[in-house]
């Protein structure tokens, strides 16, 4: 189908340079110092790939017009999306771009099939089926993930009896259609079934997943988008596509493994267990022993924060929701001004995507050497005078260490309970996204301060400033 032309061997050298730049791009992304260079290397590699393809021959005059129009439209949508979007919306944007990536790969697969179905080799149809399966499921899956992150649809897992049978059954039909299509490429029934079931499986895959598991799921969708691009490379016999797709695929895979490890759960558990669906009925503000949780005032919180040596701030998704990162940073400044050492403790799955908290706090000008990874900061909690929990919950729950009944059991947590005092800022007494109560609320050392994270932070800062006059 793709006859090697005179130009196409020259284009291969351009593709080779592009592939090398993609690899350097990821290497440089490893460290903050070189990360921006890495991004530029990636962008240059993309420009090389596009220019190489455009001058490589085989494109008609009419074709150039369509291409130019499509690229202008794409750039006109992509640019404002990247520039105006608030940093708190990064997880949504990422999900949405996975959807675009999956759709692009899938549509190319459909076009290739419609055009060449009579001439394709068995292996090519197999790769084409994989490309369409991965592309379409990434498309609907990412759209639903976007819907959940944007809270257009419920962030709670949607569970119904037999859901795993329904979703796995759909996947099995999709794979079988792909196999059938590979054997008999002329079967439009298999082609149609493959598309329909791939789209449906993407939906079934995402709806039983709760908000707290989004970091893992976004990473998995990232891997699928990459693999579909790689499959396209096999279809089109294009090594640049194979390499770039494989790099993206492994990146998503590693991130999702890291997320699973950070929760001490398996892929299967994240995808199929529907964690967080069950609201505990006993919940509420009453502890088993009949102990009532009382809220403390801003003044109480201010009093324990005065004359402290070390304060550790633990941010979570609630900080993002309340857009409280700037207020949190200002409180850190106020504490630093009175001589307190302030650290930020970042749990790997805090927020809705890998690294979410780091980005928000960097946006608020928190220097990145003040952002501490869980393993490094946990030894500091016993020395901390106060730990302030802002919008985090499950990642601080001591039940993960002790209570075998808890769905959180075994998850590595931030040892907030080892600080001398814990200030826990919370909107209400609703349980966290995993749907479980936090034992931390019942400890004598814990001060619950109820309210919107941003409001509480601003009030605390005001209280400190008043005290200074």
């Amino acid at each position, binding site marked *: 189908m793709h006859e090697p032309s005179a130009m196409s061997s020259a284009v291969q050298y351009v593709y080779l340079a592009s592939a090398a730049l993609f690899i350097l791009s990821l290497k440089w992304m*490893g460290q903050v110092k070189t990360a921006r260079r890495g*991004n530029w290397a990636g962008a240059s590699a993309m420009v090389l790939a596009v220019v190489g393809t455009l001058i490589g021959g085989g494109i008609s005059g009419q074709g150039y017009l369509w291409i130019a129009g499509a690229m202008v439209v794409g750039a006109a949508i992509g640019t404002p999306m990247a520039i105006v979007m608030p940093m708190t919306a990064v997880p949504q944007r990422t999900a949405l771009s996975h959807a675009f990536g999956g759709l692009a790969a899938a549509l190319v697969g459909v076009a290739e099939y419609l055009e060449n179905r009579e001439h394709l080799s068995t292996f090519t149809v197999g790769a084409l089926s994989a490309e369409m399966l991965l592309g379409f499921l990434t498309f609907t899956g990412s759209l639903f993930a976007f819907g959940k992150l944007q809270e257009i649809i419920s962030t709670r897992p949607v569970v119904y009896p037999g859901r795993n049978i329904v979703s796995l059954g759909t996947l099995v039909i999709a794979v079988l259609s792909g196999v059938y299509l590979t054997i008999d490429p002329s079967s439009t029934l298999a082609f149609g079934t493959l598309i329909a079931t791939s789209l449906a499986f993407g939906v079934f895959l995402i709806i039983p997943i709760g908000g707290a598991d989004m970091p893992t799921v976004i990473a998995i969708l990232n891997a699928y988008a990459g693999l579909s691009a790689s499959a396209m490379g096999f279809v089109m016999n294009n090594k640049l596509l194979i390499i770039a797709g494989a790099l993206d695929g492994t990146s998503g895979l590693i991130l999702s493994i890291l997320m699973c490890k950070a929760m001490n759960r398996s892929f299967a558990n994240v995808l199929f267990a529907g964690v967080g669906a069950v609201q505990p009925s006993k919940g509420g503000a009453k502890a088993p022993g009949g102990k009532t949780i009382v809220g403390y005032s801003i003044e109480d919180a201010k009093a324990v924060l005065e004359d402290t040596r070390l304060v550790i701030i633990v941010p979570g998704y609630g900080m993002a929701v309340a857009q409280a990162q700037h207020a949190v940073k200002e409180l850190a400044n106020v504490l630093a001004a009175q001589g307190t050492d302030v650290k930020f403790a970042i749990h790997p799955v805090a927020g809705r995507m890998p690294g979410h908290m*780091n980005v928000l706090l960097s946006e608020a000008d928190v220097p990145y050497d003040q952002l501490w990874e869980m393993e490094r900061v946990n030894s500091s909690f016993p020395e901390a005078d106060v730990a302030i929990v802002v919008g985090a919950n499950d990642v601080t729950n001591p039940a993960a260490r002790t209570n075998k009944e808890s769905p959180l059991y075994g998850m590595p947590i931030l040892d907030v309970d080892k600080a001398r005092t814990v200030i826990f800022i919370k909107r209400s007494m609703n349980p966290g996204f995993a749907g479980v109560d936090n034992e931390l609320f019942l400890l004598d050392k814990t001060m619950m301060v109820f309210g919107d994270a941003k409001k509480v932070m601003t009030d605390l800062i005001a209280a400190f400033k008043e005290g200074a006059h």
Partner: protein
Amino acid sequence: MHEPSGLIENLFVFVLASFLGLELIRGVSRLLHTPLMSLTNAIASIAIVGSLLITGRPHEDPVITALGVVAIACSAINAVGGFLITERILKMFKKRSD
């Protein structure tokens, strides 16, 4: 049509690139996982190469051109948006001394 030798070459490339990817990504600081994701997202828009080739060929069937045009637009959104947002995120990372 591909010779079987093309297939095996491609499989070699895929497997080697995957192992290289595993090594490279493991070296990325956890601090940078969000920009890493937006970068790899932009890199995955390499699918644009496939859509350019499809759209550029002369077709009798306008459906194929239409599919190709939508695919190019989707990939262009990701490529342009992905690198821009990565740059925007990375610019925010500062050290205490800076």
